[in-house]
């Protein structure tokens, strides 16, 4: 009952999921589901990171670490032991989330010893350690080639049903469901008392110490939650591109969700989602036409931030009550 209530309060997630599931069956297009899958995965990455940046006020430059742990866990598990397991894909995704969570706990434990700017530096350093590990540990990770040869997608056997996962459509459904469920869970956490405690930490972490809150402990909890969902995004990208690459751990990967948060907005839950749509869509369409895509995107970002000083949905949230009404 309580769960139904939570669903009703966040009905936009249901609308989003229903829309995404219906569209490809009305207009079947492989290009469409490919770009939507990528947007959804990056949106989950950005929303998870925004839990830390927008809601708790700590900037991480090293979230690619968790993304890569998720990606490689899923890649390695499915390549090595997929045939023997009835629920190989969900199991691999779950393991990716757990492992990312553990890595986040370790990284979070050390990084939260420092404040603000050094916190950001240290997250970057840790993610480069993960990157170096992936490059050097060739027998396990495939080194700088990554996990090549494709990642098998065995059927999901559930209640006597065998769901074929090799078709792009079934993978698309899996991605939509996993991402939308994650959005829902993260949104519920943001609306909870814990969610309000972390907002207060963002506004004034020093004061929270004088209100009985061990700020460091709460920050670590946020990093772990964020790491778990970033790990899921990483696991999904491994399935989506059928491979895990060192690129998933490289520091530029940590920057992508930060751009999305900057463009879309950090104070509104849907901000990073909008950012993911804009950035992914623009880079997919423009990069093939324009060689200097990065230069143009950078310039766009500079001009955009100079004018707005906030993300798109932050501006809209200030100007209209609409976003509050829709509970985005």
């Amino acid at each position, binding site marked *: 009952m309580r769960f139904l209530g939570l669903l009703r309060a966040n009905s936009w997630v249901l609308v989003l999921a229903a829309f995404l599931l219906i569209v490809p069956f009305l207009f079947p297009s492989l290009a469409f589901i490919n770009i939507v899958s990528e947007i959804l995965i990056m949106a989950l990455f950005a929303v998870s990171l925004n839990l830390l940046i927008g809601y708790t006020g700590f900037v991480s430059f090293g979230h690619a670490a968790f993304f890569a742990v998720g990606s490689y866990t899923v890649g390695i598990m499915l390549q090595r032991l997929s045939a023997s397991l009835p629920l190989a894909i969900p199991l691999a995704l779950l393991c990716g989330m757990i492992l990312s969570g553990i890595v986040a706990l370790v990284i979070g434990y050390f990084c939260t010893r420092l404040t603000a700017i050094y916190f950001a530096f240290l997250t970057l350093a840790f993610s480069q350690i993960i990157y170096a590990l992936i490059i050097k540990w060739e027998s396990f990770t495939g080194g700088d080639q990554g996990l090549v040869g494709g990642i098998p997608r065995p059927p999901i056997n559930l209640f006597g049903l065998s769901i074929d996962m090799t078709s792009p459509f079934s993978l698309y459904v899996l991605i939509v469901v996993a991402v939308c469920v994650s959005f829902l869970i993260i949104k519920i956490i943001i609306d909870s008392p814990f969610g309000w405690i972390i907002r207060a930490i963002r506004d004034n972490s020093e*004061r929270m*110490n004088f209100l009985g809150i061990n700020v460091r402990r709460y920050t670590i909890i946020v990093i772990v939650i964020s790491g778990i969902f970033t790990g899921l995004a990483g696991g999904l990208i491994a399935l989506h591109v059928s491979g895990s690459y060192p690129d998933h751990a490289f520091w530029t990967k940590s920057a992508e969700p930060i751009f999305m948060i900057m463009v879309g907005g950090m104070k509104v839950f849907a901000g990073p989602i909008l950012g993911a749509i804009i950035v992914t869509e623009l880079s997919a369409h423009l990069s093939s036409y324009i060689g200097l895509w990065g230069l143009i995107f950078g310039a766009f970002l500079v001009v955009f931030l100079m004018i707005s000083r906030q993300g798109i949905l932050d501006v809209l949230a200030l100007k209209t009550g609409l976003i509050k009404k829709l509970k985005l």
Partner: protein
Amino acid sequence: MAILEIENLTKKFGHVAALSNVTLSIRDGEITSLIGPNGAGKTTIYNVVTGKFPPTSGRIIFKGEDITGLPSFTVWRKGISRSFQITNVFKTLTVLENIRTALIVHLGKSLQFFKPIDHYDDLYEKTLHILKLIGLEDKKDLPCQEISHGDMRIVEVGIALASEPELIFLDEPTAGMNPEETRRMVDLIKELFETTGTTFFITEHDMNVVFSVSNRIIVLNYGEILADGTPEEIHQNEDVKRAYLGGVEK
């Protein structure tokens, strides 16, 4: 009975002693004011007692328990709350959300992850109760960065008070306030004292405020106690007159 005892407290920053061998006690159920010129060490006493940094030497006893050097969040849990001299509220949150934040922790709900915050009736009622108490009910939905300085100071006190502490420290509650706002703050402190029975420990530069609210006044000068007594006694005290009150004869 003493609720807080400070014994031989010394705090040095490098070679400078901000506090040297301060011994004082705060009695239960009183408003005690701590006064002294700028740099006398008032805020340092607050910071050391509430765990912002540990003392160089000395002991702090709260209700018979040694709390010396405990971290701030633990000191708060023991029942000591404080407000700050420089306004220290949650600026993007509304007045209601500011007060509610303190209550989330007080009611032990800070690790609840899944139930929406507006489904906690007790939390909402207690928040409204505090808002009524501090008289900011009509401004509850305004973000703190949009209210007046005086109101912000009152929110500051409200946050400290929300957790029903046994002992509350107010660091310069009327700092930067105009006379009208100051009067409001004085009324508020008196009213809170009467309705909640909380023990108050206040620093204040405005002598009119000090003499009108306090049961007892402690005078600090260069990190040492100069005098300790009722407002009457302090007013008569020759040392205090010479060192501190000198200019403000009434």
